[in-house]
């Protein structure tokens, strides 16, 4: 009986033929809807911060150097390739690429950093209308994430720390 079942197994294995993919030698195509690493198009990004507010892994940091310059930094370490940043981006500046061969010996290799000039709206600081009422509750104003230590800071301010404005508008929005 057991010899018979072994023979049966051998027949099944022989029928399947050779299935090993020639991956490292030949590249392997990915499915059409595969989401790889998000790629930022710096020419399209307006620095609205929608992606940073909606990233569940808090992988996109915003840092306002001054009124005119904003740094958008994508770290990529714990990015889950969920595509929410690409979904929420009003300018379609983020594309979910098919790149998956991101193995590296230095984690900083997958960072993307965009330094942008912002237009100077003195009233709200940053103009970005979110699609729903819930999303409008998200952080507005100046953002001071800890870019040096790559930490997301859940706080935004209506004034810049480096250039303290007139005292009476020191309202902190948490």
């Amino acid at each position, binding site marked *: 009986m057991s010899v018979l079942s072994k023979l049966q197994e051998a027949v099944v294995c022989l029928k399947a033929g050779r299935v090993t993919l020639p991956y*490292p030698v030949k590249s392997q195509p990915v499915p059409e809807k595969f989401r790889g690493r998000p790629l930022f198009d710096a020419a399209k990004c307006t620095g609205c911060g929608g992606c940073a507010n909606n990233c569940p892994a808090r992988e996109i940091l915003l840092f306002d150097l001054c009124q005119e310059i904003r740094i958008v930094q994508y770290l990529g370490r714990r990015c889950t390739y969920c595509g929410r940043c690409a979904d929420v981006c009003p300018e379609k500046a983020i594309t979910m690429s098919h790149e998956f*061969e991101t193995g590296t010996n230095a984690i900083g290799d997958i*960072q993307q950093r965009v330094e942008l000039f912002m237009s100077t709206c003195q009233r709200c600081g940053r103009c970005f209308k979110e699609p729903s009422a819930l999303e409008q509750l998200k952080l507005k104003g100046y953002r001071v994430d800890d870019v040096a230590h790559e930490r997301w800071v859940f706080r935004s301010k209506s004034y810049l720390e480096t250039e303290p404005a007139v005292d009476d508008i020191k309202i902190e929005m948490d």
Partner: protein
Amino acid sequence: MLKNLCQKMFGRSLWVYHANSGGCNGCDIEVLNVLTPYYDVERFGIKLVGSPRHADVMLCQGPAMRSTAQALKRAYDAMPAPKLVFAIGSCACGGGIWFDSYSVLGPVEKVVPVNFYIPGCPPRPEAIIYGVAVAVGLVDKKTAPVKFKQIELPIPRYHPQDLTGRDELVVYEKVEKV
């Protein structure tokens, strides 16, 4: 001589130990997928072993958790040198999307030194093979940090000194540049 021979052969017969310190099992499935006949890494001499004492490489999945960090550290210490640590998945590379919850200490590099990172949640089996190929020097890594900096203000600036009065109208003289 024996040492040289050992070092030469190290890259050709990586015995891997598979350590999950609190991931969701997605990465484990992908690592096991790499060992199936479809990807068959045993043709490169990579073999899964059951004990860290037999292993050259530790594949870490999942973040360093409060409850498993000690065990991970002990497994690392038990491995004979030379040893490599691969962080597989976004949990091991950066702490995962629950990086700030109470039970997660952070990426595995907080507990053990990591040599190679394979981000993804979970990474494709091809991505894992690629990361291993980078480690043993078969291919070059494809990623490099991207930095973009605008050096010229794209929007023309508004200069109040160019405003001139002209019969009850205020005219901005540089208007064609705006």
